[in-house]
């Protein structure tokens, strides 16, 4: 369980997180939605201990994020930011191998190699494994990054806008793979996502943020209503039931 207590973060005079208290239970896919500047990515980054908070506490299975030993924490929770550019030239397999670092400190065992191949297979990257990242399309590269954090084999996987720069087909395939990671690998996946309909169709829980606070939290059925979405996004959204999922229509 990820537990946030009175989490605050300010940049200069602007408050990005304003005393967020929240529980994310184990298992399933949790989506964080909200308008730009609501503090979604900041919250995710603090949980992933890439950014220090100004107040409050984050614990993951009782481990305090600020004090947990880095290596132990890295075996329990992994985070992927949206912008990943490496100065070094890596192949897909090189990158995925790095996911095993918390477990083997760079000396890969037979089990580590098996995990690497499994992660490559899980994201259909086997034919591309020998390619350099800069030779791949954006969608393929995104899959390679996700393969690395899956290879890290943590209970919790945090993904910051994993659908960024993906076309429809690749976005759907990415969400399916995220769903599969939660269902068949038993991961707890937390994603920051902009598209409310992807959040609705693929998550077990949705957390809606606004102005540095958690405004609503619940199942897709509870969050995907015109009233809630109007309150969160300040936009009229017509919600309809399409193919078993609640879809928001807001284009015109």
């Amino acid at each position, binding site marked *: 369980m990820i537990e946030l207590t009175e989490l605050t973060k300010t940049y200069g005079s602007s408050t990005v997180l304003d005393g967020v208290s929240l529980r994310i239970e184990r298992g399933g896919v949790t989506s964080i939605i909200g308008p730009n500047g609501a503090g979604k990515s900041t919250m995710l980054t603090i949980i*992933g*201990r*890439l*950014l*220090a908070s100004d107040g409050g506490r984050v614990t993951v299975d009782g481990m305090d994020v600020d004090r947990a030993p*880095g*290596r*132990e*924490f*890295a*075996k329990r929770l*992994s*985070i*992927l*930011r949206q912008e*990943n*550019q*490496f*100065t*070094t*030239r*890596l192949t897909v397999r*090189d990158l995925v191998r*790095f*996911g095993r*670092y*918390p477990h083997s*400190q*760079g*000396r890969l065992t037979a089990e580590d190699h098996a995990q690497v191949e499994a992660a490559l297979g899980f994201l*259909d990257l086997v*034919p*591309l494994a*020998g*390619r350099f990242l800069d030779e791949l*399309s954006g*969608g*393929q590269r995104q899959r390679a990054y996700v393969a690395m*954090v899956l290879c*890290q084999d943590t209970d919790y996987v945090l993904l910051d806008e994993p659908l960024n720069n993906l076309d429809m*087909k*690749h976005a*759907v*395939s990415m969400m*399916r*793979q995220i769903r*599969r990671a939660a269902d068949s690998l038993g991961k707890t996946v937390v994603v920051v996502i902009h598209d409310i309909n992807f959040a609705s169709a693929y998550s077990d829980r949705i957390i809606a943020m606004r102005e540095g606070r958690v405004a609503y939290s619940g199942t897709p059925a509870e969050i995907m209503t015109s009233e809630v979405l109007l309150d969160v996004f300040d936009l009229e959204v017509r919600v309809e039931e399409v193919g078993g999922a609640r879809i928001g229509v807001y284009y015109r």
Partner: protein
Amino acid sequence: MSAEQDVRPEQGEEQARGPRRLGPRTVPAWARIAALAALAVLCAALYLTYGVSGNVAYVVERRTTVVLTMLVVAFAGAVSTVLFHTVTDNRILTPSIMGMEALFVLVQTCLVFVFGIAGLSALPPVAAFLSQTALMVVFALLLFQRMFTGGIGSLHLTLLVGIVFGVLFNSLSRLMQRLLDPNEYDALQGRLFARLTRADADLLPWVAVAVVLVGIYVWRRHRLLDVVSLGRETAVNLGVDHRRVAVRMLMIVALLVSVSTALVGPMTFFGFMAATLAYQVAGRHEHRYVLPTAFLVGLCTLVGGQFVLEHVLGHAGTLSVVIEFTGGALFLYFLLRKAAR
């Protein structure tokens, strides 16, 4: 429907691009390193033995000192730059841009200014070297202590601070140099200009020990460095205490820069050249390949360059000037290529 089906057209795209060109993987990295090592040994052997006449013992001893100096300088320049690149997650900026060599110049100028040339000669070279190194490391500590606090911009802020310090140190040095007696100024210039063939032989054993210790320390952490080179966020995600590693590695960089500058004076672009060529030559990202390759590229450049300069071009110039020129040109090329992207 499985995700596999979604991917198949993409694979077709991949195949349509044709077979992979002869890439960095066709010659294994260890073979490249072996070839470089052989080249370095060849250069050294040529330099040591070519056209030896007269007092053979004296000539060989003098040339051995030069080669040993070049070994240390190549190691310090190449390794410090690669470490700096790794820790700062960039491949353009070098330690000298952090004001380290400018600090060296300032310390030298201060010494001449305060004690005069006579006073400077009175100080034992080893004591002078130790105090300079200590000053450099203290400077690095002061500068980096408040860095890596997790804010995204803090590294760039530190680099900016480094540049400002560099300008400040240079201005202070220049001010003092204006006030110097012309004879002392002349002597100072002699000390500041890199001369690989006139290094202080007394210092060599000291710096050799320091360099070997640093070499062992760094080598034992080559896998950690691989992770650090992925950048702060990825390294932290993989459980690395990035701040601690970065501060320690930057202290080592300060130590190596001071070793090199104390021995032969500032060589701003030598490290950049060795590291940049090594990234291309090694063809692999792992530090266990990059570090030895950078060292050997640097060594071949220094020893081979000195040989060509002395015996082919007939002492037509100073090696450091040639290296600075080519290194500087390479730096500009990479800077412009990066800007064009």
